[in-house]
């Protein structure tokens, strides 16, 4: 319990720069988030998708809840920005594409 308590009490201040000059609020990096599905994030992405397609097709965004970071140049960059801004936990990283790619697998059963 002692070690866990120490970790929960620890906070870390981080500043992130997106697109050169936008400074995001300082998050608590070690705030662990649980996974409750991506319904909110999917809806948030669909709302902004037309705007993103017009200006940032092919780039990446990362979404947690209704909060969006990006556009970013790569998946790795989006991941890093997401962890810095939102802490360790699930992220909704999305490449901005007009048509959603479908993964094709011949031998496994999606349940």
């Amino acid at each position, binding site marked *: 319990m002692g070690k866990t308590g120490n*970790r929960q009490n*620890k906070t*870390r201040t*981080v500043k992130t720069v997106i697109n050169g000059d936008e400074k995001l609020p300082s998050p608590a*990096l*070690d705030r662990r*988030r649980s*996974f409750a599905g*991506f319904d909110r994030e*999917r809806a948030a992405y669909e709302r902004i998708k037309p705007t993103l397609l017009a200006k940032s097709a092919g780039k990446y965004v990362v979404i947690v809840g209704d909060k969006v970071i990006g556009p970013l140049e*790569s*998946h*790795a*960059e989006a*991941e*890093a920005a*997401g*962890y*810095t801004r939102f802490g*360790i*936990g*699930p*992220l*909704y*990283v*999305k490449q901005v594409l007009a048509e*959603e*790619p*479908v*993964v*094709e*697998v*011949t*031998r*496994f*059963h*999606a*349940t």
Partner: protein
Amino acid sequence: MIVTTFDPDSKGRPLIELFVTASVPRIAALEALGEQPLSPVLVRALVDTGASRTIVEKSVLDRLGLEPVGEEIVHTASTGGTPKRVGAYAVQLFFAGVPGGRLAADLRVVEAEDLGGLGVEILLGRDVLSRLLLFFNGPEGRFTVAFSPSTAP
């Protein structure tokens, strides 16, 4: 360029032993907290040209303590005309027993509930296979892989 040759398993399948671990950005985020990522997991990967993306069994992702980084729309032999949404995770892949043999530094893989029936934990899809040369010597029953190690993203 790293070149390595391996024999198929008893069923004649191209199986490769790999280490899977968290992605470079996740490890950096953990280290910023003073934490260490969980140890890499040794897995058996089946080379699968029928998979457009690499598939990883959920138990492996759980052992690495990973959370999803999104979702993918997946079409399989069992989904019929209605593809399913499946969790996506970011990992690194290393060729086991090959020093410096990192196949991917930030690979977005698709989760599978259970690949146990195949006796493997990963289906190594064309997203990774497209980064290497794979030669199947049918008469001798051997596989050769040649690849340039992946650098940090």
